[in-house]
């Protein structure tokens, strides 16, 4: 940390925050519990994988407990409050805020992918490099940087395989200035998570060059149609290299390896340079939830850059699931198993899980749902248009439907005023904001367009 020049982009919370914070808590107790619950509810939901929080949530959104009885879960709860005009503290109205944020993201996504035929790098080979140098023990992230990073990587790996079923991940750690391969490229989320959780200790310096060299050697072996990517989670503020790192960066650039870095402390020039040269993204996490967002941004497949990977036709097999009760020896574990396997269509060898590669003939084996999981990247649904209350009042003869088409929830306030809602440009059905987010982030179907056979036939011809 000493001797290094850097621009600290993340301010450490000064000490007085703690005192101010405790006074905020005390004042908050005077307000209605409901309000506090709303604010806290949002924070809980962000960290939904923490089981403790889930339990709390389940207790009727914590309504059964008083504010002082609940577990202290959030170390920056003052950020969820704002002052209104009369000087009272209110939880930030997060629903519209959240929706606005999401709309912005959606719009930027759709504008970046101009044209109907988008090429995405759907077959990815990604190495995640975790910095386990001394800096990873810092406690500015609670309980420590490496624990938080490991937790986020676990969530990321699961999300990654959900979105990129044919891709593979490998893990590399940097410790004592040496990069070490933790897991080879593979498609099973469980083995990666287990390997990482078993190796969470840190020491020594960090070395960007060693890690790049190691990953470069591994990624050179993968087939030409695959997208080569490296994601660094970098805690340290320096790199301790044996040679000229600029040469290594050029080497990576030549091998078309896309390097991205997520920093946990402050911006470092060499990381920025690395990302610029190789076409990756560089970002610094401000807090845990920001880190989570940044990490998960790498889960959807990046737009393919034509020169990065050569388009190719890959021969693949779609094995049938063997009938229950048939005994055969599987080629992956070399054990006799009863039922529940798949048979390679080329060499008739038995494998236990999909997707995989046949051990005997090398054919890539997938099932059609694996391919279908990626199709929403290729046929994205159009963003919905905003319907603001002001445009409605201007032309009152434009009738607004009473209910959201998706969930039948009323689109009006209790006061019978129209709520903000969105409309699908294709089928002209109206949706509430919650459905809008759900449709675009998880469902990837417009219920309106799918419910009318006319629009169906238009989209259908292209889809299958």
């Amino acid at each position: 940390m000493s001797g290094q020049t850097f621009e600290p982009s993340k301010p450490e919370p000064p000490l007085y925050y703690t005192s101010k914070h405790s006074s905020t808590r005390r004042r908050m107790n005077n307000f209605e519990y409901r309000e506090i619950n709303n604010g806290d509810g949002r924070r809980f939901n962000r960290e939904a994988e923490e089981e403790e929080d889930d339990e709390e949530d389940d207790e009727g959104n914590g309504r059964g407990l008083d504010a002082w009885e609940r577990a202290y879960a959030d170390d920056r709860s003052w950020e969820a409050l704002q002052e209104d005009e009369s000087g009272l503290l209110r939880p930030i109205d997060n629903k519209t805020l959240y929706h606005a944020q999401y709309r912005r993201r959606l719009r930027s996504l759709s504008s970046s992918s101009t044209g109907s035929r988008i090429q995405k790098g759907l077959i990815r080979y990604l190495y995640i490099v975790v910095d386990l140098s001394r800096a990873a023990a810092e406690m500015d992230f609670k309980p420590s940087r490496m624990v938080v990073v490991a937790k986020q990587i676990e969530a990321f790996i699961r999300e990654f395989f959900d979105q990129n079923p044919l891709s593979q991940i490998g893990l590399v750690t940097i410790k004592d200035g040496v990069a070490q391969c933790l897991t080879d490229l593979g498609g099973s989320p469980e083995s990666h998570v287990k390997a990482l959780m078993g190796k969470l200790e840190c020491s020594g310096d960090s070395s960007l060059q060693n890690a790049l060299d190691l990953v470069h050697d591994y990624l050179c072996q993968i087939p030409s149609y695959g997208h080569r990517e490296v994601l660094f989670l970098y805690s340290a503020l320096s790199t301790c290299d044996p040679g000229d790192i600029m040469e290594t960066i050029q080497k990576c650039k030549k091998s078309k390896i896309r390097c991205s870095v997520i920093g946990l402390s402050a911006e470092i020039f060499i990381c920025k340079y690395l990302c610029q040269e190789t076409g990756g993204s560089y970002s610094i996490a401000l807090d845990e939830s920001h880190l989570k967002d940044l990490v998960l941004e790498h889960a959807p497949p990046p737009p393919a850059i034509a020169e990065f990977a050569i388009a190719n036709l890959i021969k693949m097999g779609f094995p049938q699931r063997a009938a229950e009760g048939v005994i055969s020896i599987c080629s992956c574990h070399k054990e006799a198993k009863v039922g529940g396997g798949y048979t390679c269509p080329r060499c008739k060898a038995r494998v236990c899980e999909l997707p995989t590669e046949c051990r005997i003939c090398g054919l890539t084996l997938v099932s059609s749902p694996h391919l279908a999981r990626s199709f929403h990247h290729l046929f994205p649904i159009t963003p919905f248009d905003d319907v603001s209350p002001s445009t409605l009042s201007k032309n009152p003869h434009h009738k607004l439907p009473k209910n959201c088409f998706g969930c039948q929830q009323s689109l009006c306030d209790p006061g019978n005023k129209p709520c903000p809602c969105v409309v699908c440009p294709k089928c002209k059905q109206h949706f509430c904001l919650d459905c809008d987010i759900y449709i675009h982030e998880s469902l990837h179907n417009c219920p309106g367009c799918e419910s009318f056979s006319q629009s169906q036939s238009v989209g259908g011809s292209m889809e299958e």
Partner: protein
Amino acid sequence: MLVCLCNCTDDVSLLMVLLDTNPFFWSTSKSTSLSFSNFLSHVLAFLNSVLLLNQFNQVVVIATGFNTCDYVYDSSSSPTNQRAETLLRKFEEFVVKDEQLSKEDTVDGIGNSLLSGSLSMALCCILKSNSNDIQRVFRSGSLHPQPRILCLHGSPDGPGQYVAVMNAIFSAQRSMVPIDSCVLGVQHSAFLQQASYITGGVYLKPQQLDGLFQYLSTVFGTDLHSRRFLQLPKPVGVDFRASCFCHKNTIDMGYICSVCLSIFCKHHKKCSTCGSVFGQAQTNAPSTSNQKRKTPDT
């Protein structure tokens, strides 16, 4: 008994029933031995029994028509004493509307109903009725009336709906909503087989449609918690083969475009979906398989 004490809320279920009302399916006597009115009386009895199992149980019925889909009944917003009347009245309105929309269409064969639309609507409804906060639903999946979807489907699968149905299935899987399916037609439905397999629901094709109520009440009436203790029908075998984009043939070996994952049965020079030109596929093929074989061994 002990288990029930700690999570007694497990017994409350939210049942979304998707009814296939495709008139072309119900009018062809060949395709089913059951008339539509008989079918409805079985289903009404089933819905009543589900509502009687627990006073907090909720039933929502969505009609899957040939031209449109719509909500027909919601037990939480209808008076309890006139269930059948409200349902049937709304149903009639729906069928008339569906018919009006289909005037200009000419159909060959049975045609397919809009499964993708009703599945999408059911998922939106599940999302909303369980929580006001969306994050909780599709991140953690712990919900409080336990939702499930039951598809009573007869029409054959529409190949054009493939992507949409699969999207809905994966979304249901992410929110941990099981999709149960009861197939009334002659053929098995590959869509619903995959839906039930992926989401952990039950797939059933009743042998005797006259006893539909018994099938429904014994297999689909029980809540998710009680299912663990029951011997439910096991999946017979799911067809995971893909159909190629060029001829719509079902194939067990084929070529996949590395850019967009389109499936082809023969080697092409250019991808018809994403437009990428394939370079040296033929010359590269053996070398890539050699290189790739290294990865699993190491």
